């Protein structure tokens, strides 16, 4: 089977400081990869390099495109990359404000990606928006409200709906449960797990919260100072950590 995403030797520096160094992994269709580490470990840099928000210094990010098969995203033209970003890819930001248009209604937020790829039937767009609001458990009568009137958890669910409406194959998530109350987090995680399974999504999830990866990720990479120090199946890494740093990470959670 061809991996959906192959990452080879991805490196990004900020001057003398290392953002992420020589990161390589494969992600297969339907697989969820978790990246954990403390803040400053390079996990967000890595995610932004993968998603093309940051220009990496070296390495390859090969995506199995629908039409042309595996292609290095970094070698694509900007229009191609942007097209990918609004069709087959999705990006869920930690802060929903970064991923939503706060001045546009919930329906408009969900409909934007559809319109960006050519949807021109208002009724259909609205129908799909309603369907997606339902799937992320937002009441239909909120469709014309702006996200400013929503709670943090609702905003995050709306962001997820907006991202998934075009049926992407690969989702990047940056601390999707960060900044939410524990009870709200649990509901969101439940929802995400359902959607990932149902849609057969592949995802790369960056988080500092081991509970998130335990629930969502099949595989795990642990990062420290820009380097991947340990990688493997999630349960294996969490239950039998080999690297000292991973052991520390796991034990600190257990103590907490």
């Amino acid at each position: 089977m061809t991996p959906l995403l192959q990452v080879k030797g991805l490196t990004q520096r900020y001057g003398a400081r290392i953002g992420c160094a020589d990161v390589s992994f494969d992600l297969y269709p339907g697989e969820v990869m978790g990246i954990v580490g403390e803040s400053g470990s390079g996990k967000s840099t890595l995610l932004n390099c993968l998603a093309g928000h940051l220009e990496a210094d070296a390495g390859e990010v090969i995506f199995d495109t629908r039409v042309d098969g595996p292609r290095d995203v970094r070698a694509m033209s900007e229009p191609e990359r942007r097209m990918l970003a609004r069709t087959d890819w999705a990006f869920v930001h930690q802060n929903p404000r970064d991923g939503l248009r706060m001045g546009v209604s919930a329906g408009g937020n969900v409909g934007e990606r559809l319109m960006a790829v050519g949807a021109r039937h208002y009724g259909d767009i609205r129908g799909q928006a309603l369907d997606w609001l339902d799937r992320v458990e937002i009441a239909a009568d909120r469709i014309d409200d702006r996200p400013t009137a929503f709670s943090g958890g609702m905003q995050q669910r709306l962001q997820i709906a907006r991202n998934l409406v075009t049926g992407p194959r690969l989702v990047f998530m940056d601390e999707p449960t960060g900044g939410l109350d524990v009870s709200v987090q649990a509901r969101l995680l439940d929802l995400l797990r359902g959607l990932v399974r149902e849609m057969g999504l592949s995802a790369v999830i960056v988080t500092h919260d081991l509970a998130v990866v335990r629930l969502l990720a099949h595989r795990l990479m642990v990062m420290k100072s820009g380097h991947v120090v340990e990688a493997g199946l999630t349960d294996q890494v969490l239950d039998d950590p080999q690297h000292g740093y991973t052991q520390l990470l796991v034990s600190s959670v257990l103590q907490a």
Partner: protein
Amino acid sequence: MSDYNFAYLDEQTKRMIRRAILKALAVPGYQVPFASREMPMPYGWGTGGVQVSAACLVPEDRLKVIDQGADDTTNAVSIRRFFERTAGVATTGRTRDATLIQTRHRIPEEPLTRDQILVYQVPIPEPLRFLEPRETETRKMHSLEEYGLVHVKLYEDIARHGQIATSYAYPVKVEGRYVMDPSPIPKFDNPKLESAAVQLFGAGREQRIYALPPHCKVVSLDFEDHPFVPSKADHACDLCGSDTSYLDEVIVDDAGGRMFVCSDTDYCEGRREAGHLGRLAASGPSAPGQEDAA
């Protein structure tokens, strides 16, 4: 005014503007940056249109200038007089007699021909400006053809008002590529953008020229189930009786009494001369009145 060159601008400048016009015609709907000059009239009062007209005019031309469809509004008078003084060209109020028409906010009712040039005055050339204030961003959106946001605006209109609530400066897509602001013409005029004439758009303050070559495809943006409707007041002209022309509403007394008259004054006069009479017209063709505005 013999101190100034023909049509005010020096030949170097006119050549620069003509190059921009040619580029604009070659890439319909694309906004070509040009080094707009400071004109002896304020920015926002037609400096872009005036520069484009100045670059196109030749001594044999016959010029018509309209503002809100009328030849006799003050700014139209002022611009017409500017070219009378600096270019010495003949002027006319008759649409069919004009070789070059400079306009603000209207397209004449009478279809234009291949021998005519229509020059629009444009305040804000960027159709995405009120969705995204940054020029660096909007240029990128055009170059990558990222126009989803324009439809989001239309979607929001329908969600809130039940219909698309843009009544003028209604965005169009040109030849399936560039989204373009047709200048603040009422959307009633949008279908006339597909024309036999050359149409040039000049924005002086914003330093942009864009164009529609003859018979170029111009589609007003809409949804399949909320199609574009070129609307007007649901009346006939009270002077000439036309029920197909764009109408101005005029308040005629203190009690709020009102009447509707053609915005295109030449069209209205032509119809009256041909014997068409509206609800409030005196019997027989009448010359327009001579009341002073001052």
